[in-house]
């Protein structure tokens, strides 16, 4: 019974959201506001129980008083909510940025730049794909080289770079379309095969 009620709530809210495709209406607004409110409440409760309690409250109760430092930094972040003392949050933010940079800068550079440069440099030019990849990387980089006017050979290479970039953006957009359709298919799948079969007339659709 609980599952059927859940399916109906989910289905009606889905249909309320879809109703916006026809035109803006009170059902859509209701679903939108409900989503925002429920999300805010859910995340507040979830982070309180999964972050604040196990990572701050419990260690302090067990006598690990070093945890006062992150606790104070957390409170300093919340000072943003009070405009007069909002500047205090910058100290906590500065700590996070400084710690993050120091801790991950080298790893980030190694993972997201040097490894790819190394892989491209060590490519064997024994297939059309590999040749295209190297040309694409070089001309793409030339397009972003702004210290010399894009004229002559440099201009031609930059133009070729734009073509590679456009093809990459096109492929990326294609993937985005695919992702959005997947989400729509997921909802339709739920409506057709999970919600509709709760109505006796459509029971044959159940999977």
């Amino acid at each position, binding site marked *: 019974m609980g599952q059927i009620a859940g399916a109906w709530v989910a289905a009606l809210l889905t249909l309320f959201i879809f109703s916006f495709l026809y035109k803006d209406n009170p059902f859509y607004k209701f679903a939108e506001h409900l989503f925002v409110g429920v999300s805010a409440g859910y995340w507040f409760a979830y982070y309180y129980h999964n972050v604040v309690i196990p990572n701050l409250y419990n260690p302090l109760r067990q006598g690990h008083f070093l945890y006062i430092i992150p606790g104070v930094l957390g409170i300093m972040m919340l000072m943003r909510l009070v405009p007069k003392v909002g500047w205090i949050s910058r100290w906590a933010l500065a700590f996070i940025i400084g710690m993050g940079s120091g801790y991950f800068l080298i790893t980030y550079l190694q993972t997201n730049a040097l490894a790819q440069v190394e*892989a491209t440099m060590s490519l064997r030019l024994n297939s059309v794909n590999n040749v295209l990849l190297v040309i694409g990387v070089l001309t793409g980089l030339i397009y972003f080289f702004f210290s010399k006017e894009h004229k002559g050979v440099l201009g031609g290479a930059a133009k070729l770079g734009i073509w590679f970039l456009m093809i990459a953006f096109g492929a990326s957009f294609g*993937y985005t379309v695919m992702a959005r359709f997947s989400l729509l298919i997921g909802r339709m799948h739920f409506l057709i095969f999970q919600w509709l079969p709760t109505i006796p007339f459509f029971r044959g659709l159940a999977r």
Partner: protein
Amino acid sequence: MGFADRIREIDRRIIFLVVALAIIIPLLIPIGFPIQVSPSVRDLYNALESLPPGSKILMSFDYGASTYPEIYPMSLALLRHCFRRGVKPIIMGLWPEGIPFAERALQVTVEEEGKVYGEDYANLGFKAGGIVVMQALGRSFEEAFPVDAYGTPLSDIPVMQSVRNYDNVAIVIDFSAGDPGIPAWIMIAQGRFGKPVGGGCTAVSAPQFFPYLQAGQLVGLMGGMKGAAEYETLIRTRDLGSAGMDAQSIAHAVIVLFIVIGNATFFLGRWSSRRNKGTS
């Protein structure tokens, strides 16, 4: 008003309706288009296939409800493959919503394959902290997760007894919908600890991970619902991924058709207005 003008000014709701039908009809009447397996998905399959039975893998569920239709089918396919091969997944999540989805996927696959909690798999639960947790796992799993998702100390779980840190898992698999996700796992597990990393991600984010594949930092990748369908093809099990692929293909064909019609009417309109100017 000519045909081109009428098409250009068509009510957008008609387009929505056509797209909806393009999805609903193939879901109700499956066509069964063949699913071609891409090299990145096959590489991930081969990476798991090459593991000896009894190997442990770390599987992180880092996604939420908004990407459920894309990533949940991947997790089902991968868990099935693990259980059939006798590979033991250690489940965890860096996104709070990830664990309920992991439990749902486990409920389905554990029942199908007849596996036992603690012996064949473990669920460490959610841990906030993202990249800091990944770093802690490199030192000790017990440090990051003193107890599993149900409050049992890791030392009391048979499958965890021989697992101290990344050294004791064969591969890290991440189901990623954002941050923390695949890039962070590559940075820490692969970059710092040299552990092979593979995974599944939303189709939107797949192109940004191809450089990692090319550089050998990822052993394999499933991108979107199509990636899930390809993996299902490899393990010979039709499920949620494959079920959506007919609708996906038809919907894409409809979009291509709309683009062609849109461009054709645009050029037709321009051509006819030029011709009208020439005659007047």
